[in-house]
């Protein structure tokens, strides 16, 4: 049984159909990438999974359970965490507060342990733990967003454009973290415009266009596929 199963999902954004009849699955332990141009419906798909948007039709199953109508905060309790587009760190709270809020659904001493683990993994966050999150650089904010999502100990991590607007060195660093997280067993659904990096870091890839899936396959094969290059740079 797949961890996440999306069937015939359609989502409207106002009067606009942002996602049409999309079906995809994510198996436990996988990294799956959604790529496609702006407005292709990638972010909408993630927001539907994390329950921020109401689907028009279709179903979303998580761990066998139908979550199509679940409120967003309940989805977190089931084990879905999202690092949203534009990072959305709580700029007016400290880094530590941001991380503690990441563990809002949990309690007990394990939270403290996870916190120090995060500071170990992201030393730059540890150095600045009392700083307001809004004062961090873009890359640091992205790390904070990922770390915050991890604080809920998710079964499925949704990452929306983690490389957006970041310098290449930082992008590389972040993708290192993604590989590392997966190696430790976290299942990841990744939305990314940096196609090459994303495919290198993932097992399978779905290519979206105008709200619909155009093709899919193993990332390792698609990475050299002419069609992807074509989709991005033409020929």
């Amino acid at each position, binding site marked *: 049984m797949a961890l996440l199963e999306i069937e015939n999902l359609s989502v409207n954004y106002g009067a606009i159909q942002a996602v049409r009849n999309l079906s995809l699955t994510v198996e436990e332990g996988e990294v799956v990438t959604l790529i496609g141009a702006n407005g292709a419906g990638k972010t909408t798909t993630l927001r539907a999974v994390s329950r921020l948007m109401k689907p028009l039709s279709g179903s979303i199953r998580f761990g066998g359970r139908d979550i199509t109508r679940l409120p*967003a*905060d309940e989805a*977190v309790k089931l084990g879905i965490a999202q690092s949203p587009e534009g990072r*959305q760190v709580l*700029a007016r*709270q400290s880094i530590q*507060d941001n991380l503690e*809020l990441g563990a809002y*659904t949990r309690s007990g001493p394990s939270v403290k342990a996870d916190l120090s683990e995060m500071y170990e993994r992201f030393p730059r966050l540890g150095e600045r733990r009392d700083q307001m999150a809004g004062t961090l650089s873009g890359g640091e904010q992205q790390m904070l967003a990922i770390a915050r999502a991890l604080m809920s100990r998710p079964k499925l991590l949704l990452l929306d454009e983690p490389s957006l607007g970041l310098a290449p060195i930082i992008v590389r660093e972040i993708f290192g973290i993604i590989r590392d997280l997966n190696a430790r067993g976290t299942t990841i659904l990744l939305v990314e415009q940096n196609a090459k990096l994303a495919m290198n870091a993932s097992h399978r890839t779905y290519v979206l266009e105008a709200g619909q899936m155009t093709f899919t396959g193993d990332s390792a094969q698609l990475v050299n596929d002419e069609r992807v290059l074509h989709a991005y740079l033409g020929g």
Partner: protein
Amino acid sequence: MELSQFIQNLMNGLAIGSVYAIFALGYTLVFSILGIINFAHGAVFTLGAYFTYTLVVGQFENNGLLKGVNLFPDGSPFSGQPLTFALATLLGATLAGLVAVLIERLAFRPMRSRGADPLLALVSSLGVALVIVNLIQLLVGAEIYNFPSNAYGDTPPALSFTLGGKIVIIRTVQVIIFAVSLVMLAVLGYVIGRTKIGKALRAVAESPTTASLLGISVDRFILITFFLSGFLGGLAGTLVGTAFGVAGPYFGVVYGLKGLAVIVLGGLGSIPGAVLGGLVIGLAEAFVPSQYSAYKDAVAFALLFVILLVRPQGLLGRSAIQKV
């Protein structure tokens, strides 16, 4: 200005300003989360004072449907003065908080779930205020009620001390109000700044979407916010009531209006802003020279108007950056 008078004005401004601050905090909390101004907040303030009065005294005058009712009749286990003033104040504020929760459920939530124009919340809350104020009058009449003079125990009515050869006299009740307000602000500051609930509350205020992605139930926190708002409003009502009497069902209206000036001055939605705004307006009013006291009511609003033009986000507010 002589030092003694300066001290007196200062104490005055601080006392009334700290009440403005607690009252305005309730306003601003709701605004920070829902982006609406709850015009019923002044009515909740009034209710708080009446609730406390009811718990302390238990009977009313000759007007209204409740005339002749005695909550604590002689011979019953509650006869005499049943609740200490402090307990009654807390209970009264709690009841006011529950009323605020009720207001959110009945008058705001249905509107939100329909995605209606947030401006309509102004009208809806105005309706709620009208209902509350007139219900109070129906029940207990329009007269002035006052707390027993020993509400704060056997304190002298005024404290006096000499300063540079001049006598400075300060009303005890003002000192108490200031102290209670400070304690309240400290407690609230701790809850909002340090506790998990407070952090979650601020997360909801900053971004409801992000908050829900962290597993925070936004709806529940809206209720908590309304409760806190009502609690603070009700507490402020009781404090003002002890100093000046509960001057009829409309006695919160002035505060409702002043409170608006306070929260905008401090920065809409900003918690420290509400405190600063309250103190600034309280002090500004206290330092209006007596020959211009007729213009005292205009001070808060003139200040507000100017601040809005110079710094629309208020003293401590953040300016929203518009994305193109």
